[in-house]
């Protein structure tokens, strides 16, 4: 992939994901135009420690839960929302 085809996304982490990754965010590389579902898969592949959250995982884009087909911009605030037992 050339630089033009791939973007780098910053994904904020919370809860068990943050503990497992020992970090408050991870960087995920994915082709420009990747939707949230694909970005989650790329995250699991590039950060295997986070694969455990994938079944319950969604992404928030700019502080709102995003549908799986939403295409985020690398400049958006993206957060991993994986609520196994929240509240």
């Amino acid at each position, binding site marked *: 992939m050339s630089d033009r085809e791939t973007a780098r996304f910053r994904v*904020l982490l*919370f*809860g*068990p994901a*943050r*503990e497992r990754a020992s970090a408050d965010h991870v960087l995920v590389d994915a082709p420009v135009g990747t939707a949230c579902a694909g970005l989650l898969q790329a995250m699991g592949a590039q950060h295997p420690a986070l694969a455990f959250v994938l079944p319950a995982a969604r992404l*928030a884009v700019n*502080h*709102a*839960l995003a549908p799986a087909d939403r295409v985020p911009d690398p400049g958006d605030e993206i*957060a991993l*929302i994986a*609520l196994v*037992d*929240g*509240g």
Partner: protein
Amino acid sequence: MSVQARIVDGPLDPQAPEASPGSGAVLRFEGVVRPVEPQGPGGAPRELAALHYETYDPMAERSLAALATEMLARHRVHAIRVLHSRGRVSAGAISFTLEVRAAHRAEAIAALTEFIDRMKRDVPIWKRPVWR
């Protein structure tokens, strides 16, 4: 019709509901940190000193408000007020309160039940046990 949603640092105070002369039913739920919890799913019970709540701000508060607004419209209740703790809350203390005012109890119960179910699924708040 009114909605209030707020994330508050630390435990919540037990509060008397405000007066609500037009509503026939006032339903209030308080979530209290239990002193004993299973350690992990299906695990043995273990004494808990506290829960530590992590919130994704400002999304957590916004999500609570959006959820309250949605429940207000769907269940035709008069008012919803929700508070949730952020940070450490000791065992026995209150970490969550939800108050629903409605004309009749059926709407109040339906709105409260659905609110809590949805909150646990959709509102970005995580809890971490602090074992004794």
